[in-house]
C-alpha cells in the first residue's frame, strides 16, 4: 500500500484521537458516588500519600460492603499531585471537569493552598486529610473545606499539658529542633501547654532555649552533648523523619535515655521503633493521630486496623491510615444524611454530624472547620521480651477541642 499525505494525516489523527478519547471527553456520571482523592504518590512525600491511599481504599471497601451510600456504590478516583501545587491543581481541575463534587486531599500544605481557591468555582466539598498548617483554617480558610488533621497548638499544646500532669515534679525542660518555622511552632505549642498546666497547678517551669541542629544533618553529637549538659530532667525532641532516626542512633551511644527522666518525641511515633528495633530508647512518649489499641471500645477502629493488617501485614499502621479512612467516611456519611452531593447541603450536614470513625467521633468546629476530635499519646520503648524488641507501655487520650487554637477564619492567628 502506498502511503500518501492524506492517508498519513487521517491515520495519525484517528490514532491520536482513539488514544486520547477516554481521558479527554467529559465522562458521564453513573450510579456511583465518586470521591476524588488527590495525594502525593511520587517523590519524597509518597510515603504519606501511600498511607492516605490505603486508608481511603479501606474506607471505600468497608462502606461498599455495608451497602454503599443510599444504595449507590462509592468509587474512589485517585490522582497523584506530583508533590507540587500545579500537579494538585491539574488533578483537581481534571476531576471537577469529570463532574466530581466530593474531594479528599493531603498531604502538603502548599498543594492544598493551590486547590483551595478553586473550590467555590467548582462548587465542591473537600476534606483536608491530615493537614496541620494553621493557614488552612485561618487566613486561607474556605467554608467548603474541612480539616481532618491536628493543628500544632492542639496536639502539641495538649502534649505539654499531658506531660505537666504526668510529671509535675519536672521543673526544667530542654528541647531540640531544626531551625524550621514549622518545628518552632511545635516547640512553642508544647511550651505553652506545659506552662498553662503548671500555672493552673500553682507551679513554675523553666523551659530552656531549644538546641538547634541542621535540618537534614547527619551528625548531632555536639548537640546531644549540650542537651545532656543542660541538667534538665525532661527532653522534648522535634526532629523528624530520617533526622530523628540518626539522632536516636547517635544518642544511644551517649546513653541519652538514662540521662533524662522523661523523653518526649514530637510525632515520629512508631517510625523510630520500627527502624531501631531492640535499640529503641527505654521509654519514649510520642503524639499519634491514631493508635488502634488506644481505642479498644471502638469497633470502627478495630475493623480498620484488621483491614490494614490484611492489606499490608503491618500491625502498627501509621496514623494517616485512620485519618484518611475517616475523611472518606465523613464525606459518605454526609452524602447519606443530606441525600445530595451539593456543597450547600453537605456543609451544614458535616458541621452538625459526628459519625463514628476510627479516631472516635468525627466532628468539626463550626466557625473554622477545624477538627475537634480526641488526641492520643503513646509511650513505648525497648522490651527484650517482645520479638520486635520494643513494646507500647502506656497510652493517654485528651479531648482535642480543649486545646484548639482560637478560631479566626479568614485572618491570621496572632
Amino acid at each position, binding site marked *: 500500500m502506498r502511503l500518501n*499525505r492524506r492517508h498519513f494525516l487521517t491515520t495519525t489523527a484517528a490514532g491520536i484521537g482513539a488514544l486520547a478519547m477516554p481521558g*479527554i471527553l467529559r465522562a458521564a456520571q453513573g450510579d456511583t458516588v465518586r470521591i476524588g482523592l488527590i495525594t502525593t504518590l*511520587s517523590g519524597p512525600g509518597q510515603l504519606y500519600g501511600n498511607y492516605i491511599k490505603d486508608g481511603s481504599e479501606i474506607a471505600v471497601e468497608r462502606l461498599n460492603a455495608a451497602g454503599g451510600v443510599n444504595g449507590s456504590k462509592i468509587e474512589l478516583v485517585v490522582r497523584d499531585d506530583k508533590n507540587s*501545587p500545579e500537579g494538585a491543581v491539574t488533578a483537581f*481541575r*481534571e476531576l471537577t*471537569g*469529570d463532574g466530581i463534587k466530593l474531594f479528599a486531599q493531603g498531604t502538603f500544605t502548599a498543594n492544598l*493552598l493551590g486547590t483551595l481557591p478553586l473550590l467555590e468555582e467548582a462548587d465542591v466539598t473537600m476534606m483536608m486529610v491530615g493537614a496541620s498548617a494553621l493557614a488552612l483554617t485561618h487566613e486561607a480558610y474556605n467554608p467548603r473545606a474541612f480539616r481532618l488533621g491536628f493543628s500544632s497548638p492542639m496536639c502539641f499544646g495538649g502534649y505539654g499539658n499531658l506531660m505537666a500532669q504526668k510529671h509535675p515534679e519536672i521543673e526544667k525542660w530542654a528541647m531540640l529542633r531544626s531551625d524550621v*518555622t514549622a518545628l518552632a511552632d511545635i516547640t512553642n505549642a508544647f511550651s505553652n501547654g506545659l506552662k498553662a498546666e503548671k500555672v493552673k497547678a500553682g507551679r513554675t517551669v523553666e523551659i530552656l532555649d531549644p538546641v538547634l541542629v541542621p535540618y537534614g544533618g547527619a551528625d548531632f553529637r555536639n548537640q546531644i552533648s549540650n542537651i545532656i549538659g543542660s541538667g534538665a530532667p525532661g527532653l522534648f525532641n522535634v526532629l523528624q523523619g530520617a533526622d530523628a532516626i540518626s539522632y536516636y542512633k547517635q544518642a544511644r551511644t551517649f546513653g541519652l535515655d538514662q540521662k533524662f527522666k522523661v523523653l518526649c518525641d514530637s510525632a515520629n511515633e512508631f517510625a523510630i521503633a520500627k527502624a531501631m528495633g531492640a535499640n529503641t530508647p527505654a521509654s519514649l512518649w510520642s503524639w499519634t493521630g491514631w493508635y488502634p489499641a488506644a481505642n479498644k471500645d471502638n469497633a470502627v477502629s478495630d475493623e480498620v486496623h484488621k483491614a490494614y493488617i490484611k492489606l499490608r501485614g503491618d500491625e502498627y499502621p501509621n496514623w494517616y491510615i485512620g485519618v484518611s479512612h475517616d475523611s472518606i467516611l465523613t464525606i459518605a456519611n454526609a452524602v447519606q444524611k443530606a441525600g445530595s452531593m451539593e456543597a450547600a447541603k453537605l456543609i451544614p450536614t458535616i458541621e452538625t454530624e459526628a459519625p463514628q470513625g476510627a479516631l472516635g467521633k468525627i466532628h468539626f468546629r463550626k466557625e473554622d472547620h477545624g477538627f475537634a476530635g480526641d488526641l492520643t499519646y503513646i509511650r513505648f520503648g525497648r522490651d527484650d521480651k517482645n520479638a520486635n524488641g520494643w513494646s507500647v507501655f502506656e497510652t493517654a487520650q485528651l479531648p482535642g477541642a480543649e486545646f484548639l487554637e482560637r478560631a479566626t477564619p479568614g485572618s491570621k492567628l496572632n
Partner: protein
Amino acid sequence: MNRLSTYLLVALAAILLLLPLWANSGLVFLTGTTIIVAVFALSWNLLFGYAGLASFGSGGLFSIGAYTMAVMLRQGYEGQFLLLIVLATLAGGVVAFAIGFVALRRSTGIFLAILTLALAELLRITLAKIHWLGAEDGIPSIVRPTFSIGFATVDLSRGNSYYWFVCIACALLVGLTWWIAHGRFGRTLRTIRLDVERAAFMGVDTHRYRLVAFTISGAIAACAGALFAPWAQIVTPDIGNMMRSTQPILFTLLGGASSFWGPLIGAFLFSAIEFSTRTLVGIQEIITGGILLAVVLMFPTGVAGAWNALIAGLSARPEPAKAAPALQPVKE
C-alpha cells in the same frame, strides 16, 4: 519548514485555541501549563541550540518572573498587568545579565552548568526562608487580573479568558524568539557555537553576543514565569527547583536541539505521555521514563529530526536524508 509541517503547525494552533470549547478543564489547565513551559524551553534552547551554552539553573529565572508577578498582584497592581509582565521580564533579564556578566568570562560548559544550578538552588532556599513571600508555602490565591487598555476592559478572571491570553502571549514570544534566532543575531550565535575561535578571529565579539543571548534567554524565561503565576494561582519556592530547570533540557532532548521547534514538540509530547499515563499510579514514572529513553535512543536528533527524516523519505527523493548529529546547525 515544509508545507506539511506548516499545515500541522496551523492545525495544532487551531486545536489549542479551540480546546476550552470541548475539553475537560483539567486538560485545558495542563495544556496552558504546557504552552508556558514550552516557551520556557524555547528560551533555554536559544542558549543551548544557538549560543552553545548550557544552563542548569533556568528554573531560577522562571521563578523570578513568577514571584515578581505574584508579589505585584498581591500588592494590588492588577490594573497594570501588561506593565507587570514587562517588569517581570526585565527583572529576569537584569538578573541574567548580572550572572552572565560575571560567569561567562570565566566559565563555559560544565562549569557554567553547575554554577547556574547552584545559583538557582540558592535562590530557592532563600525564597523558602522569606516569610514575607510565604516561606515554604509560597504565595497562594493569586488573582487573574482585570485591566483596562484604554478603549476596553480586559477581564482575565472569567472562564477561559486567561487561557486565551496565555495562547496569544506565548505566540508572540515564540514569534519574537523566531525573529531573534533567524536574524543576523541568531546566525552570529550559531557561528560562535560552531567555532568560537574562528568567530573571534573574524571580528565577532563572542563574549558580548553570548552575554546578550544569556540575557534574552533569562528575560523570556522570566516572562514565562510571569504568565505562569496567575495561571497556577500559586507560587512556591519549588517553582524554580531542579526539576523545573531540568524541564527544558528534557523537552529539548526529546523534541530535538537541532530544530527551532524541537523544545515545543518535546514539551507537548511529554505532557501527552504524562496525561495519558496519569491513572497508572506507581508505574507512571517507569512508563514515562521508558518511553523517553526509547525516543532519545531511537531518534538521536529528537522527534523533530525524525519527522524531518520521515518527510524527506515521503517526498520520494532518490536517497533518504541522513540523520544529523544532535548539535548540528539549527534547521527549520
